[in-house]
């Protein structure tokens, strides 16, 4: 098979326009990011060509900016809590979809996955009505509940995909050998799903850090970082926003590289206990 694939790939020479198009799309995707980073070092502020007076002054101002760092801390707390909720309910949901039959399963699947494709405004507003009726005061907690609920969908899809690839033989063996369901879950199921779970956790964390459409409606007194940035944007453009965005972009890049390394390494090692079953 291998030689056929390479034969077919060399058979169809890639047309020049296709390469040019790909290059243009990449330029389009990266141009705003490049400009964002470049102007975080621009002494004259945002905009104005060519950039002049390169400086790290905006970063200095940023590091002394209390409200921004408060909002960063809030966002980290929200993301962590939302991640725990999404995993705590998303992993069982994936197991339920994979292994249990119950009335309303199709509806349940739809409902869980809906926030993935629904515009955030609908999720945000419907929760706002819930909190209004239940007389819950808006705060970081309501944002956590909103993010957690919306991101269960991510945990469920990722873990469900992992379960589909998993053979049940190991779990069966574990149960046959007298382990309880609880032991089997922690010693066999979770370790074998480790990659899907870590992937889901990273994804949920970053999505929550970045989320604004749902938070927009559930915000109390304390801002998350995107809402803090939003508030400042309404007052005017400041290079501080470029600076904080650049820093967050760097952290995201590191997270991607770490995740990529983890995955390639894990793919090289076999499933836990696989040798016992075979």
């Amino acid at each position, binding site marked *: *098979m291998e030689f056929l694939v390479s*034969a*077919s*790939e060399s*058979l*169809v020479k890639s047309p020049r326009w*296709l*390469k040019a*198009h*790909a290059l243009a799309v990449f330029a*389009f*995707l*990266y*141009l*705003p*990011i490049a*400009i*964002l980073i470049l*102007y975080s070092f621009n002494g004259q502020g945002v*905009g*104005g060509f*060519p950039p002049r007076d390169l400086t790290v002054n905006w970063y200095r101002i940023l590091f002394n900016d209390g409200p921004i760092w408060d909002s960063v801390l809030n966002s980290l707390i929200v993301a962590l809590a939302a991640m725990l909720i999404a995993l705590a*309910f*998303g992993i*069982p*949901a994936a197991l*339920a979809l994979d*292994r*249990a039959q119950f009335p309303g399963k199709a509806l*349940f699947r739809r*409902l*869980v996955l809906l926030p993935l*494709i*629904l*515009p*955030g*405004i*609908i999720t945000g*507003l*419907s*929760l706002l*009505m819930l909190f209004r009726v239940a007389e819950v005061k808006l705060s970081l907690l309501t944002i956590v509940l909103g993010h957690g*609920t919306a991101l*269960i969908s991510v945990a469920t899809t990722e873990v469900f995909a992992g379960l589909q690839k998993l053979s049940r033989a190991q779990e069966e063996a574990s*149960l046959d050998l007298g382990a309880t*369901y609880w032991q089997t879950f922690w010693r066999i199921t979770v370790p074998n799903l480790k990659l899907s779970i870590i992937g889901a956790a990273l994804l949920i964390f*970053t999505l929550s850090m970045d989320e604004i*459409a749902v938070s927009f*409606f559930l915000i109390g007194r304390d801002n998350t970082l*995107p809402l803090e*940035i*939003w508030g400042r*944007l309404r007052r005017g*453009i400041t290079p501080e926003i*470029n600076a904080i*965005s650049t820093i*967050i*972009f760097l952290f995201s*890049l590191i997270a*991607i590289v770490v995740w990529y390394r983890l995955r390639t390494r894990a793919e090289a090692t076999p499933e836990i206990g696989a040798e016992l079953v075979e």
Partner: protein
Amino acid sequence: MFSRAYRTAVTVPPLAWVAVFLLVPYLLMFCYSFWSVSESQSIVHSWNLDNYHELLTKPVYWQTLLRSMWIAARVMFFSMLLGYPLAYFLSFHAGGRKDLYYQLVIIPLWVSYLVRAYAWKTILGTDGVLNTLLQYVHLTSHPLDFLLYSPFAVVLTLTHIYTPFTFLPIYASLEHIPRNLVEASHDLGATPAQTFWRVIFPLSIPGVLAGATFAFVLSLGDFLAPLLLGGPSGIMISNIVVSLFGAAYNWPLGAAISLCMLALVLALIFFSERLEKKWSFS
């Protein structure tokens, strides 16, 4: 092999959570849309169809909805135009660099949505990067003011944001095409264009549909890009909803509009899934 207790333990907690935080809120939205607001700014729980009547009779609502759909359709078209050939290039012509290119498409997704919209604002503004560049090289003598605060700016920004989203399902469906089908088509004498249109493209339609739905639905419900870059002519339906829930304080009417959006979105997802099933090959 799984006992009843196990199945209950994995089923009941997520079911309960989803019921409380998704099902009940949607039902509440449904209820709200039949209520009204009294003179004293409190919600009156009397059931009537006034909100829906207002939606149908006041042109501003359905005109804005149509404009939003038009903006969303353009975003869908352009992200397809950018995303499809890119996915095709990666899947069939990138060779050993496939993984690297793939990561390169994903990375912009990790830059905050808000920050990317903001970046376009700094590019397109009257004192922005593009205008000052054009004047610097003496292509223009005055700043072009149609760039920012226009539907154009909204379409451009949303296309930038949703191109990777459309790319992903298309790429996945292209990767699933068995390569020996392509090989067979060549062997039987088809030209590359014939192979593409008769073999590859039909097999990628499920991915195209999923990507198109993503781009259309998510940009239809967007309210931040229009607020930031749209100006008065770029107002979208969600902006009306936001103001009804805020300063205008008419939650019931806002709920009615949201519910119409929800119905529209669900209908779109339903049809796109039906089509996907029809075109998916197994």
